[in-house]
C-alpha cells in the first residue's frame, strides 16, 4: 500500500472541484428533481408524464440519432478508405482538403445553412432543377427528419473520418499490401483487413458522435418542424414555456440512460478486447 499523499490530493483538487461543481452537482440535482415530488419523497410521476407526452419524440430521437450514426459510419469509412487505399492522387488530395471543413462550423450555423440549402425553393432543389434532373413541381422540402439527419451526418462525418483516417494511416501498410498481393480487391481489403484493425477507433468516434447528436438543440429546432421532434427541443420547451423542470429532468435522465447504454456497449467491447489481448 502506498501512503495517500496529501500533496497529490491538493494537485488534483481543482480538477475534482470542477467536476463536482459543474457536473456532479447538476447531475445530482436533476436526478433528485426527476425522482421526487414537490412534497418530498420518491416518485415516478415525472417519468410517467414525460413518457405520456413525449414517447413518440423519444423514439423519434432514437431513430434520428441511430440512423445518423450509421450513415456517419458509412460515409466516414468510404472517405477514410479512399484516403488510405485510393490510387488517384488528385482525388485523394482534394478529398483530404475538403472533408474537414464542416468540423469548423458550429451546429447552429450548419443548421442555418441547411435551412436555405434544403428548403423547397432552396439551393439543392434549384440546382437539381437547373441541371434538369428534376421538374420544379417535384421539388419538396427536406426540412423534416431528413434535414436533421443530413445536417448531423454532414457535421459528424469529418470528425469520425479524421479519427478513422488517422488510425488507418498508422496500421502497417504491408498488411494492406499482403492482402492485395494474395488477390483481394481494394474494397475487400478495406472491409476484411483495414476496418477490423481500426474498429476500436471507429467505435470511439461513433460513440462520441452519438452522444453529441443526442444533445444538440439547435438543429432539430431550426431544421425541422415541431411534430415530432427531438428530446432536447422538448426539454427546452418544458422549461421555457412551463417552468416545468421536473419533466425536463425526467427527459434528461432518459437521455443519460440512452447515452449510458451506448457508453456501456463501448466499455464492454473494450474490456473484452483487453481480456483477449
Amino acid at each position, binding site marked *: 500500500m502506498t501512503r495517500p499523499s496529501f500533496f497529490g490530493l491538493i494537485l488534483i483538487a481543482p480538477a475534482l472541484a470542477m467536476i463536482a461543481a459543474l457536473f456532479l452537482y447538476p447531475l445530482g440535482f436533476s436526478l433528485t428533481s426527476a425522482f421526487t415530488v414537490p412534497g418530498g419523497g420518491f416518485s415516478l410521476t415525472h417519468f410517467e408524464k414525460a413518457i405520456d407526452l413525449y414517447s413518440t419524440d423519444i423514439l423519434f430521437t432514437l431513430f434520428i440519432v441511430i440512423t445518423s450514426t450509421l450513415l456517419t459510419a458509412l460515409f466516414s469509412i468510404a472517405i477514410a478508405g479512399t484516403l488510405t487505399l485510393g490510387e488517384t492522387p488528385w482525388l485523394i488530395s482534394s478529398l483530404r482538403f475538403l472533408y474537414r471543413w464542416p468540423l469548423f462550423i458550429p451546429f447552429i450555423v450548419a443548421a442555418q445553412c441547411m435551412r436555405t440549402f434544403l428548403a423547397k425553393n432552396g439551393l439543392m432543389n434549384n440546382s437539381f432543377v437547373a441541371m434538369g434532373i428534376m421538374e420544379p413541381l417535384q421539388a419538396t422540402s427536406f426540412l423534416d427528419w431528413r434535414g436533421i439527419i443530413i445536417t448531423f451526418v454532414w457535421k459528424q462525418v469529418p470528425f469520425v473520418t479524421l479519427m478513422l483516417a488517422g488510425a488507418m494511416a498508422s496500421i502497417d501498410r504491408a498488411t494492406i499490401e499482403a492482402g492485395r498481393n494474395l488477390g*483481394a480487391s481494394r474494397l*475487400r481489403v478495406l472491409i476484411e483487413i483495414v476496418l477490423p484493425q481500426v474498429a476500436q477507433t471507429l467505435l470511439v468516434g461513433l460513440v462520441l458522435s452519438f452522444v453529441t447528436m443526442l444533445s444538440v438543440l439547435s438543429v432539430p429546432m431550426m431544421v425541422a418542424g415541431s411534430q415530432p421532434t427531438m428530446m432536447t427541443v422538448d426539454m427546452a420547451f418544458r422549461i421555457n414555456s412551463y417552468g416545468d423542470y421536473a419533466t425536463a429532468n425526467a427527459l434528461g435522465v432518459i437521455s443519460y440512460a440512452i447515452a449510458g447504454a451506448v457508453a456501456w456497449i463501448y466499455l464492454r467491447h473494450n474490456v473484452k478486447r483487453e481480456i483477449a489481448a
Partner: protein
Amino acid sequence: MGAPVSAAIAIDSLHVSYGNQRVLHGVDLTVAPGEFIAILGSSGCGKTTLLRTIAGFQKASQGAIRLFGRDVVNMPPEKRGMAMMFQSYALWPHMTVLGNVGYGLRLRGVAKDEIRTRVATILKMLNLSGLEDRKVTNLSGGQRQRVALGRALAIEPEILLLDEPLSNLDAKVRLQLRSEIKSLQNRLGFTAVHVTHDREEAMTMADRIVVMDAGKIAQIGSPKEVFDHPNSPFVASFMGAENTIGLDIRTSGAGVEVAVAHGNPTSWDGAVPLGPVTAYFRDDVASLDGPDARIDGSIILPGRITQRTYPGGHYRYVVAINDRHFTVTDDHYHELDDAVGLRLPLASLHLFPTDTIKGENHA
C-alpha cells in the same frame, strides 16, 4: 526484347520514379521458372523498388514486366497472382493462424472444410501443426514469419517474392528459416525473387545473384561467379573485397611485372590489365610471410604487426604497412612489432585500371 516466352519473369528496360526522382534506370532481368534469384545491394540502390514494381505496388514509368509471357506492367497487384513475404511479417492481427494462412484460398472461393485441410497440410510442412486457432499476436517472431510463409505458399504461387523477410529475426531462427525456404523451394519448384542486403544470405540461398547499384544492375551471375570475378570495383567491394592497394603493371618478357610502392615487385604470367591498377581484396586472401620473401605470382608488402587477437582456431593480426593497416589471419604465433611480409597472391586480387575507377560510386 527477346526474352523467351517461357521465362517466369522477364523485365525489359524498366524505369521507375518517385515523383521527379528516378529510382530505377532501365533494368533488364530474366528469371527462369523454378530459379531462385537474390537481389543484393546497399540501402537505396532500388532493390526493394524493383521487387515492389514486380509485385505491382509501385508503378513503372517505362518498360515491361512479363510473367510467363503475360504483360502485367499496368495490372493492379491483386491480378498478378504472385505471393509475397514482407520484412514486417504483415500478418493480420485480427485473424487467427488459420484465417491468415487460409485467406488466399478464401479469396479463391475454396470451401471452408477444404481450406482447413489444406492449411493443416501447410502448417505441418512448416512445423506449426495445431496452431490453427492461435492468434498471430501470440506467436514468436520465427513462428510469425513461418505463418507468413505458409500464407504465401497456400495459394500455390508460381512466383514468390521475398522482401527481406529474414532481417527482423534473430540469427539462429534466420539460419533455420533460410534453409527451410530453400528446401521448400526445391520441393515445390516455385520461382523466387529474394531482396536482401545480407551477402551471405544471398550467396547461400540463390541460384543467381543480381547486384544492384544506384538503380541499375551492376552484375548478374552465380554466387561463385559474382564472388570470384566481380566485374567492377563496386561489386568487388560489395562482395567483401574492401581493401585496396595501388599497383603498377608493365609487360616484361612473356608475362608482366607487377610493381607496388614500398613492396617487392614480382613477375606473373596471368591475364591482367596493364598500367596503373587498383587491386581489391578480402582479408582472407592475405597471409603472412618473411619481409624479404620473393614469390612469383604474389606481392609481398613488408610491415610490422601492431595487434594480435585470438578469435579461436587461428590468430588474427593487424599489420601496419606505412600508414595503412590490414587485417590478416595466420596459424602461427608472432610477437607484436615483428617485421613480416603481407603476401597477396595476384590470382586472388580483383584488378581494375585506376583511371576508370575515378568517379565511380563506392559502397
